[in-house]
């Protein structure tokens, strides 16, 4: 989904920054361990301290700005055409499609004994959620008992199901 693409892009950006910082720190560590230059009378190092204060601040800003951009992109609500309610229970989900009629069903995980060859263990359910593709869908998520979390990792979605609270996520599959 577009959001997942943006998340992957941000991950690549932050990963490269993190890798280069790690490489630099590793090199600095090795240089410190192997140097023969030692001075026990150093009292201050104003220039170095200025650099290692300002440079990390700049790096953090360069990481934070794309992060905030992705954060606000995931919060965008772009006129969803369909609403599904998802209620978490111990230990199943209830889905309600109430826009066009009153379809309500429970979705239980299939135990390993009931799986067919090729089925995904711990992921297959008896009644699947059916989502329209290329259409914005609003998902209203809550819980009946304890905290749950509703997620589709490949779409970049994860929303907590909190008892007494209605959380919303909008996505396009």
């Amino acid at each position, binding site marked *: 989904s577009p959001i997942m693409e943006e998340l992957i892009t941000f991950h690549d950006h932050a990963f*490269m920054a993190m890798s*280069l910082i790690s490489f*630099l720190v590793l090199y600095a560590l090795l240089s410190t361990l192997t140097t023969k230059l030692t001075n026990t009378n150093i009292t201050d190092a104003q220039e170095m301290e200025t650099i290692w204060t300002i440079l990390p601040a700049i790096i953090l800003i360069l990481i934070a700005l794309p992060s905030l951009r992705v954060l606000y992109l995931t919060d965008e609500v772009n006129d969803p055409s369909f609403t599904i309610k998802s209620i978490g229970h111990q230990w199943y989900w209830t889905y309600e499609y109430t826009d066009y009629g009153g379809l309500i069903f429970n979705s239980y995980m299939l135990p390993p004994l009931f799986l067919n060859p090729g089925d995904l263990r711990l992921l297959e359910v008896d009644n699947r959620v059916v989502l329209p593709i290329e259409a914005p869908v609003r998902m209203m998520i809550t819980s009946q008992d304890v905290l749950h979390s509703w997620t589709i990792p490949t779409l970049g979605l994860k929303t907590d199901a909190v008892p007494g609270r209605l959380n919303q996520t909008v996505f396009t599959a």
Partner: protein
Amino acid sequence: MAAAPEPGEPKERKAFKLLGFLDVENIPCARDSILYGSLGSIVAGFGHFLFTSRIKRSCDVGVGGFILVTLGCWFHCRYNYAKQRIRERIAREEIKKKILYEGTHLDPERKHNSNSSN
């Protein structure tokens, strides 16, 4: 998730990761940035050594060159990659619209043809 390979099928190649964690194969622009960075590091470090004959300082210059060249190539490549993705997305949307509106009064090609015939 993936089924086990059949006896006749080739085995899945293990993903190569630089230093065990940097996935240069699947991250766009990573491979080119690292390669150009390495080249820049060698050129900067070796060039500095040729002029000054200072080994440790040349190593520092090499590392600095690697970081700067990698970052420069990375941002340049990612910027072009982002522009390309935007162009692809626009093209996809336009193709969808063209298929959707073809033959109707909203078809822009129809409007253009009627304007040119007038």
